[in-house]
């Protein structure tokens, strides 16, 4: 009997040992990699023509591209675009925060800045769940979409410079007259050209070969050239802004009886669906100097350290030590107090502080002979006027 008992418990023990060791030796419960786009991702380095070249993150995709997986998850997306949508701002900012060295949107550039840490800052708040339809000057624009980086930029590439979208708030913004009718430019047409120059701060990177022609450019706003169908890119640029800020995209006398225009009837008429307002606006739909959106406003944002005064100086000009050739040598606090925007509605992404841009353009014709000649240029205009697009 005792012999049998021993046999039973031995068998029992062996069964137990077998059961648990089978599990112990089995593959550890590694998390499935289906949620994990990494193992299948390969960033290629040979282009369509067999040349060695790096794949571009945005646009100019190769036929052997694998850049899609940078931002999309094939089976585990967070929205219908298979995108990590909630994290769009964070996704963009994982490179554009300065950690890639170039295209840091928190630094002052041709588009202004997204740095909100300084005095008098204002910006297109892309991380704030702001509805596009709440844009100042929105009359026809009733978009309920949220303002994101992709509201203005197309990460997949664009014929426009700086990846600027061809459709904004759901419509093709760029229109021009074809046989007397405002007609949308065909998709794929470059309408916005910017004044881009290779950034000398990145000369080393710009000189590299094997990067698929990648260059770091700096922008100085619209180029001011005719891009499509005889229309100047400054006007297309204003149309771009006007896609959301539609009521501000107009000619100064658009609402006068002398120049009636549908949607902007003369004063006194009842407010109708096409009637916007009875007030006047500074001209924004012309390619002449000072008469497009980009003349006075940045696209990203502004702050006291980014804005200029009427003679084109910034805080940096005022704080440059006299010993280093500076003219003023002010301390930072003084310079920022000087450049502070005290407008009731905030700094409104302006390139010039307060209403200095008005003064820079119109000062000499309004305050005739009253302006200290040291602030005037050779043609008798305020020095800062030359910096207005």
């Amino acid at each position: 009997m005792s012999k049998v008992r021993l046999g039973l418990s031995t068998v029992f023990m062996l069964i137990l040992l077998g059961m648990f060791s089978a599990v112990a030796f089995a593959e550890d419960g590694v998390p499935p990699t289906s949620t994990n786009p990494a193992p299948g991702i390969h960033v290629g380095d040979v282009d369509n023509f067999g040349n060695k070249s790096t794949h571009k993150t945005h646009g100019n995709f190769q036929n052997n591209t694998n850049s899609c997986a940078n931002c999309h998850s094939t089976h585990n997306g967070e929205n219908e675009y298979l995108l990590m949508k909630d994290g769009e701002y964070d996704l963009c900012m994982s490179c554009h925060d300065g950690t890639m060295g170039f295209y840091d949107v928190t630094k002052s550039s041709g588009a202004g800045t997204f740095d909100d840490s300084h005095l008098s800052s204002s910006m297109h708040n892309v991380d704030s769940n702001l509805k596009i339809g709440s844009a100042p000057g929105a009359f026809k624009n009733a978009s309920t979409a949220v303002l994101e980086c992709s509201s203005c930029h197309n990460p997949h590439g664009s014929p426009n410079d700086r990846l600027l979208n061809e459709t904004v708030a759901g419509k093709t913004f760029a229109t021009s007259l074809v046989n007397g009718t405002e007609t949308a430019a065909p998709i794929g047409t470059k309408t916005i050209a910017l004044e881009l120059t290779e950034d000398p701060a990145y000369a080393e990177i710009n000189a590299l070969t094997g990067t698929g022609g990648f260059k770091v450019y700096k922008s100085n706003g619209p180029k001011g050239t005719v891009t499509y169908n005889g229309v100047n890119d400054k006007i297309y640029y204003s149309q771009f802004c006007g896609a959301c800020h539609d009521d501000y995209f107009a000619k100064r006398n658009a609402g006068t009886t002398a120049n009636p225009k549908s949607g902007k009837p003369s004063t006194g008429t009842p407010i109708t669906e096409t009637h916007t307002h009875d007030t006047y606006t500074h001209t924004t739909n012309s390619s002449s100097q000072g008469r497009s959106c980009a003349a006075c406003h940045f696209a990203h944002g502004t702050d006291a350290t980014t804005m200029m005064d009427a003679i084109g100086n910034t805080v940096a000009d005022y704080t440059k030590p006299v010993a280093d050739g500076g003219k003023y040598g002010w301390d930072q606090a003084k310079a920022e107090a000087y450049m502070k925007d005290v407008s009731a509605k905030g700094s409104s992404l302006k390139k010039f502080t307060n209403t200095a841009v008005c003064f820079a353009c119109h000062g000499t014709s309004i305050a005739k002979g009253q302006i200290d000649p040291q602030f005037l240029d050779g043609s008798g205009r305020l020095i800062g006027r030359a910096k207005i697009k």
Partner: protein
Amino acid sequence: MKKRTVYILMSTIVALSVAFFAVVYFFNLESDIKPIVAKVDPSAEPVFANALYGEFNQPLNKPMDVTKIGEFIYVSDTNNKQVQVFDQSGTSVFKFGTEGTGEGQFKFPYGIAGDKDGNVYVADLYNANISIFNDKGKFLKYFNDEEKVLKSPGGLRISDQKLYVTDIKANKIFVFDLNGKKLMEIGGAGADEGKFIAPNAVTVDLDKNIYVTDSGNNRVQIFDKNGKFIRIINGSKDGKGDPTFLNPRGVAVDSKGNVYVVNNLAHNINAFDKDGKELFDLGGMGTENGKLYLPNGLFIDDRDTLFVTDTVNQRISVYY
């Protein structure tokens, strides 16, 4: 009662217990919390242990780098422009730094490291300097970069009384002694061996080899202690094929010489053995425990505990 009946009863009880526990075990009905003893097996890959979140009212905001100094964990809490300090249990103990360009202030606190006296070195990418604090967060001085070479310091590590720092815009790494004397520099912009585009992190292994994450070129480059190029890890078989990294960031080496690289846009950590052969991945995109969402900084302590900054999830994930 008959002896036989007792035996039958007893063995029934045993059999039922075994059956019960076997069911629990095989159907994974046990608690999800893995005991830390899982790490007793040194050949196994690290497992998620816990996460450090910071204060409820002021959570971490885009933590970019992490280090352990003494028994405390120091995190560059970048968007809050401060350093947040945790004890091992994950309690936020104190924090220091405010926004600004003056002493004790930050604009983009990034690489963080401690010296043997417990002083804390913090690189500021925007302010272009390295601040030194004591272990309680009192500002002591700026790192005296004698030749004024630093333009945009990013990754920072201290090893063997030497300070290793990446300069993102200069596309270089610099090695200084702790008095600020420049001992060595490696790099310059480019995609060739020994050149970088936006190097974001650096670390040193026990043999004093230098590992640099070359983010713009999607690779990690390894140099010997004299700065001589050794090889590349980019996820391909021998480092010579197409890279599998997407914006690699933090890099660290454990006591066995295994190399861990944070693959930022793929939301995971890739581990390689010392010859560059890929071993396993940790993380994967998500918000649950053990998942990562745009991870960045990585630190491995002397007990092979991994600390990774999980920027969108606003936490530091710890793997044993």
